[in-house]
C-alpha cells in the first residue's frame, strides 16, 4: 500500500457493472475508512488505461456483449496482468470471473480468450440458467464464514490444477459443472459467481482483501449488526428454498 492510502480500482464500470457491482466497491471503501484508512477510489472506463499501481481491483458482472468488449480491451491494455505481477489483489464476479480465466464463450458463440490470471475455462451451459440464492462453505484455508450470494449465469466454469475452489455449494449451482465447486482462487486473484453484491452479503471477504493488502492478521472490529441480520435471513432463505 502506498503512503497516500489504499487504492481501490473499479475496472470498467461502463461495461461490467450490471448487477449492482458498485456495491462491492462501496463496501470495501466503507470498511477501509471505518478502520481509519485513507481510500483513493479509481474508476477506470474501458477507453482508459488500467493503472498498475492499485492495491485492490474489483471486476464486476456484465451482459454478454459488454463482456466480450471488456475482454478485448483488457487483453489489449495488459494493465491488470501487470498489477497482479506487482502483488495487487483482484476480486472478480460472474462475467469478470470468466474474463480472468483462459477463455469463455462470447455473445457470438465463439471461444473468447481471457486474461489467464486464473486457471479456469468457462463454457456455455446447455441447461437452464442458474438463478437464485446460494449457500456455500468457503475454502477452509481462507478461514471465512459461510458464503451467501445470488447467482444468475448461463456459463459453467471448469477449474484447472492451478486454482482452488473458492467455496463448495450447499444450495445452488456455483460453477455449475456438477462438482459442487463455487468460484476459484489462486494467490491474490479471486473469482466468484455470487452477486448480492457478494461483499455486502459477506463483509468478511471484504475484510480478507483488506488484510491481504495490509499484510495483517486482524482488523479492528466494526458494527456488523445489519450485515449479520441480512446474512442470517439469506442463509435461512437459501436453506428453505432447497
Amino acid at each position, binding site marked *: 500500500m502506498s503512503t497516500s492510502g489504499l487504492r481501490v480500482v473499479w475496472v470498467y*464500470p*461502463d*461495461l461490467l*457493472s*450490471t*448487477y*449492482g*457491482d*458498485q*456495491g462491492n466497491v*462501496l*463496501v470495501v471503501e*466503507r470498511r477501509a475508512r471505518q478502520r481509519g484508512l485513507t481510500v483513493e477510489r479509481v474508476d477506470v*472506463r*474501458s*477507453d482508459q488505461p488500467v493503472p498498475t499501481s492499485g492495491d485492490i481491483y474489483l471486476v464486476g458482472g456484465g*451482459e*454478454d*456483449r*459488454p463482456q466480450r*468488449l471488456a475482454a478485448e480491451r483488457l487483453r489489449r491494455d495488459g494493465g491488470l496482468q501487470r498489477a497482479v505481477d506487482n502483488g495487487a489483489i483482484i476480486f472478480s464476479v460472474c462475467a469478470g470471473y470468466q474474463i480472468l480465466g483462459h477463455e469463455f464463450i462470447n455473445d457470438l458463440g465463439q471461444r473468447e480468450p481471457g486474461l489467464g490470471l486464473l486457471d479456469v475455462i468457462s463454457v456455455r451451459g446447455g441447461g437452464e440458467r442458474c*438463478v*437464485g440464492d446460494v449457500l456455500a462453505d468457503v475454502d477452509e484455508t481462507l478461514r471465512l464464514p459461510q458464503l451467501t450470494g*445470488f447467482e*444468475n449465469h448461463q456459463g459453467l466454469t471448469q477449474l484447472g490444477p492451478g486454482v482452488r475452489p473458492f467455496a463448495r455449494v450447499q444450495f445452488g449451482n456455483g460453477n455449475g459443472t456438477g462438482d459442487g465447486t463455487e468460484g476459484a482462487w489462486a494467490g491474490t486473484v479471486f473469482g466468484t459467481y455470487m*452477486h*448480492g*453484491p457478494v461483499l*455486502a452479503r459477506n463483509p468478511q471477504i471484504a475484510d480478507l482483501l483488506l488484510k491481504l493488502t495490509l499484510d495483517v492478521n486482524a482488523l479492528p472490529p466494526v458494527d456488523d449488526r*445489519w*450485515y449479520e*441480520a*441480512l446474512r442470517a*435471513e439469506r442463509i435461512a432463505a437459501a436453506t428453505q428454498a432447497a
Partner: protein
Amino acid sequence: MADSAQPLSARARLAVTAGKAAAAVSRAAGRGSGSVIGGRVALKVDPDLLARLAGHLDVVLVSATNGKTTTTRLIAEALRAGGEVVSNALGANMPAGITSALSAGSEARFGVIEVDEKYLAGVARDVSPKAIALLNLSRDQLDRAAETRMLAERWREGLQGSKATIIANADDPLVVWAASSSPNVIWAAVGQEWKDDAWSCPSCGGVLHRPDDVSWQCGECGFGRPAPSWVLSGDSVLDPHGTPWPIQLQLPGRANKANAATAAAVAAAFGIHPQVALQRMQAVAAVAGRYDVVSHQGRDIRLLLAKNPAGWLETFSLIDPPPTPVILSVNARSADGTDTSWLWDVDYGRLAGHPIAVIGDRRLDLAVRLEVAGVDFRVCQTLEEAIAQLPPGRIEAIANYTAFQDLRRTVGN
C-alpha cells in the same frame, strides 16, 4: 389494418362476451379487476381478436422501462379533446390485458395502449398503430428480463419498416438505436437522468462520449444524438417551430414533465394542439395510485413507485427536501425480480438529512445499503410502526412494485 371499420365478426363478438364473463367471475371471486383472465379467455376464442378490436381505432402504443403508465394516461387525456378514448389505464400491459381493455370501448375513436417492453414488437404487428411513443430503456428485473440492449435490438427489428410515426426520446441512446431503423421518427428531447445503461454504443460497442449534459456521441462510429423536433426545456416544451408551451401538472417531478412533453408530441401527431393537450393533462392528479396523497393513522403519506435504479433516481429528485420523513419499502417477489443487487446502483446517499424508516420483505438489504451509504435509518416491521417512529410532516413513501401494491392495500387506496 385488419377488417377496418367492419363490424366485429360473430366469433369476435363471442370472444368479447366470453372474456367479459370470465372477468366478471374473477372479480366476483375477489381476484382483482379480472382484465387479464378476461383477455386470455377472449384470445383463446379468437386469437386475432386484438387485431380486430384495434382495426376500428386510431392506435398509439406507449412503451418504456419507466413512465409508460403515466404517459399513457396523459396521452389519453389529451386525445379525449378529439374523441372517445379506450385505454388500458390500469397498467395491464401484455396482450391479454390489452385485449381486455379494448373490448370495453366499441364506440371509441382512439386506442391509447401501454405495452410491456418485451411485447412491443408483437403488439405493434397486431394492431397497426398510427403512432408509437418510446420513452426510455434501462436495467430492470435482471434475473428474468432480457438484457437491456437486447430489448433495444428487438424493438429495432420489430419496428423496421413500421408505418407508424415513432415519437422517440433523443436523449436515450438505446431508444435512439431502437427507433432509428424506422422511416418515420419524430425525435423528442425529454431527458434521461439515468445514464449507466448507455455508456457503450448500441451500434458498434465503442465508448459513448458525453461532452456536456445534453449531447452524446460514439467515439468510434459516430452514432449520436439526433436533432430533436420537440424539446423539454425547463417547465416548457418547445414544439417543432420552437414555440414554448408551458407544462403545468399536478403530477410532480422532472420525469413527469418529460412524460407530458412526449404526450404533447404524440397528441400533435393526432392533430391535437399542444396548448389543448397540455391543458387537459393538468387534470391528472394520480395514476393507478402513484403520487396519491393518502391519510393513514392521522398522517399524510405520498405514495411513490420506483421499480429500478432509473426510477429511484427520478423519484429522489422530486421528493420534498429534508427534514421531510421518508419510508422506503422493497420486496423481491417474482414480479419485482428476485435479485436485490440493483439497490447498489441507487445512490441512497442522496437521502442524507431525511429521517428514514425501512420496511418491506427485503428491509435488511435496504438496511445494509443505507449503512454503507452512511445515512441514518430505522428498520421497522410494519407501515404502522414506521409511521409511529417518524417525526411529524407529510411522509414520502417510496416503494418498488409489489411493495407499492402492499402499501396501497394497507392504507386502503
